[in-house]
């Protein structure tokens, strides 16, 4: 119980760090030095101490939205195992986890519409469009995971998969499907470019154009946490080997180190993907998601019909 809280707290606190690392890796790969890895913390601190400027068109959504978004992100962090799992927790239903993460999306899109800004509406509309296509993939991935482990509980799944020695090919295919979904869901390239403010490319950023001050800090923090959570979920579902299943110091230290290595590897993979692919046109995004969809279908077929 306490270890769960601690690991989740660590995840929350470390989340901006992962974003910073990702940015740094990208910068290095592109051949320039880039900001320090702790830059996201500085950004958040800076934003927190700035005054809030809100649009006069905005409603209570702008007031409560960021708070709820951040709360949802933190809450989902508490539902996710990071490096330890006992496998018998009361919490951790995958469905609840996924749906709580969708709170972030829901409020983000509303915030996009809230300040009567054209860009906001655009971003919101695009986000929803992508989300609609991504939903079947989620279903299939959850189905796959359930087929594999007969459980919806992520702690249990992680534990089962942690001790698993044989990894089927279906498992790998499903992992790729998950990865693509992860990219789409976290507004990374090639679905969205989180670095620019260009009308053609914006999805996520467009929605929060008119957000400033602590609100922006919350949202940035939330998206950093969200990315971290998604990666953690990914790791815990598909590559949980070395995860601590018992409360021994050695196991825990081993688990933390392995977790960090896995995290860094995947951040590297995302960075490589991001710098090597140009952003897709909006209407090509469904193709990408369709690819993910077919991976998932393939995974289920391999799992089930073989």
């Amino acid at each position: 119980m306490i270890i769960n809280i601690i690991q989740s707290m660590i995840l929350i606190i470390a989340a901006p760090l992962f974003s910073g690392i990702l940015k740094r890796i990208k910068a290095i790969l592109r051949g320039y030095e880039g900001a320090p890895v702790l830059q996201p913390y500085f950004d958040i601190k800076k934003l927190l101490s700035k005054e809030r400027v809100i649009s006069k068109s905005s409603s209570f959504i702008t007031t409560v939205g960021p708070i709820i978004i951040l709360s949802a992100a933190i809450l989902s962090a508490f539902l996710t195992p990071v490096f330890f799992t006992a496998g018998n927790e009361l919490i951790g239903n995958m469905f609840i986890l996924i749906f709580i993460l969708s709170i972030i999306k829901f409020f983000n899109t509303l915030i996009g519409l809230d300040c009567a800004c054209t860009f906001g509406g655009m971003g919101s509309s695009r986000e929803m469009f992508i989300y609609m296509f991504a939903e079947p993939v989620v279903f299939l991935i959850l189905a796959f995971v359930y087929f594999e482990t007969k459980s919806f509980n992520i702690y249990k799944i992680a534990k089962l998969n942690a001790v698993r020695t044989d990894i089927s090919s279906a498992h790998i295919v499903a992992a790729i499907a998950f990865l693509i979904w992860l990219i789409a869901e976290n507004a990374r390239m090639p679905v969205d470019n989180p670095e620019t403010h260009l009308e053609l490319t914006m999805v996520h950023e467009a929605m929060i154009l008119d957000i400033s001050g602590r609100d922006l800090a919350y949202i940035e923090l939330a998206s950093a946490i969200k990315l971290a959570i998604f990666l953690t979920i990914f790791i815990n579902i598909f590559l949980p080997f070395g995860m601590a299943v018992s409360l021994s110091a050695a196991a825990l230290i081993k688990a933390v180190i392995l977790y960090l290595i896995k995290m860094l590897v995947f951040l590297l993979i995302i960075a490589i993907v991001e710098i090597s692919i140009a952003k897709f046109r909006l209407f090509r995004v469904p193709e990408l998601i369709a690819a993910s969809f077919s991976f998932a279908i393939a995974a289920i077929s391999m799992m089930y019909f073989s």
Partner: protein
Amino acid sequence: MFLDFSFGIMKDFLSLFFIFIIIFISIPVLIYSGGYIGEYRKNYSVKYHWSMLILFLLSMIGVVLSSNSILFMVFWEIMSITSFFLVIYEYKNKENLKSGILYFVMTHISGLFLMFMFGFIYKYTGQTNFIKITQMYSNLETHKGIIFIFALLGFGAKAGLVPLHPWLPKAHPSAPSNISALMSGVMLKVAVYGFIRVVFVLLGGVSYKYGFILLFTGTLTALYTIINALLQNDIKKLLAYSSAENIGLIFSILGLSIILNSLKLYESSIMALTAGLFHCLNHGVFKSLLFTGAGSVLYATGTKNMNELGGLHRKIKFTSICVLIGTAAIAAIPPLNGFASESLIFMSFIKSVIAIKSKAFVLMIVICGTALALVAGGAIYSAVKAYGITYLGEARSKKAENIHRIPISMNVGMAILSLYSIILGVFSPFIINFISKYTAQYIFIKEYRLNFIGYETIFISIMFIVIITLITIVSRILDRKNKTETYETWACGFNNFKPNMQYSGDGYSQPAARYFGFVGGYKKEVIIKDTITLKQRVHDVIERQLYNPVVDFITFISGRIVKIHYGKIQIYISYIFITLIISVILVLKLV
């Protein structure tokens, strides 16, 4: 008495559950109506409205309580009639009359199918009493197919299954909003009740073949209607389509339950049925909430076209908060009730697959489940569209600026419904486990106790609230330090803002229209003259392709048949003689 009219009432769980739904939802809607009807006082009769409303509610309760097929049909038809009169309540609008007539005809079709169904049941069992029928279902064993098909058509027409749905997006917008809330929230559930009563109880379960029919119909309905919902700009039309979508969801989960039941996978079957029943309750609550919200918008602004609205949050803040809760519920946002049942539905889809041996079945169920996942995505899309375009941003027309005050009773009604939505969501594990205890009866296991779902939702809700409170406190502290200022929207720096620069309802669903427009008959037209005008139109494809030809055909036939009344007496006399000769010959030959 030849026909047993005994006024015995059904007192089993199924009836009580649906009566609970009816009463539970109708109370806040009635409170809401108290204020809402005030608007009509000038032009229409309020007494008429109330009496019809009460009759409507009573007839629904009657349907659910009746233990006899004839009584059932009587109440069923009264329900149709009263709801018809409520739909055409605003008779001064010709469109309302048209859609009312369509509604009444469709509901009559549904009634006829049901009569056929009960006729067949009577034929094979010789009974009209439900309890006696259940004692005789061995007689029905080989005839379940035809009864099932009629039940599907009859109840499906009333519930709005594709392709029998076109009345739904017409009747719901035409009716006063409190009525649409009841029709969508409650009346459709009565149809679901009838279906469960006949298929699960009277027939005692049917073969998996029919389960698949149901599953596919439900999935098709959900897919078709959610895309149509996305493309609508009329709030109430959008909600009406979304109701049909939810009905599709419910029917497909019932289909799943039938499949599992006939494969003897009772545990999963109970879960599916529970999910279906629970979704009935939840959909009733949040759809009533959304319809009452749409009613408030209509009351305040006089329009239900999203492209004329916007920025309503300023003037009717309370309503917009309630509707936000409803929107979140329909978008399956935890811990609200929509989430509770929708996740249960998806869980039972996934769980069922693991138990089924046949690979073909698994494939079909997975495909349907995936399609329904897409539907869930579309549901969020349309819900956000409906809420965002209507309530947020700036007013897009004068109508949205000059707003009437909303009576307190309307707000009270909506507040109660929002409260329901939260309670049903947070305490969903209790409710689900409670329902599942009784649904076991309909799957032939008498004593069955299973907790499908842990109580984590409650725990998580508490956690959520704690976190929100903490962050709010943090925000307060921060706000004390930094001041908050209000300016014009920045939007990357342009400065003369006009309301029509905002995204419109059409624009919002434009990406989806590009992909799925053909399903909703989407048509875009750009006219470049002095100014550029863009027209976008949608229509119901099924209505155009299926209903209009039928109507044309009937008109054509009747045009032909009318010709026999030629007006000349000599021709009439020859009719008599010719008929005489033909029938004498036929009688001699054939009889």
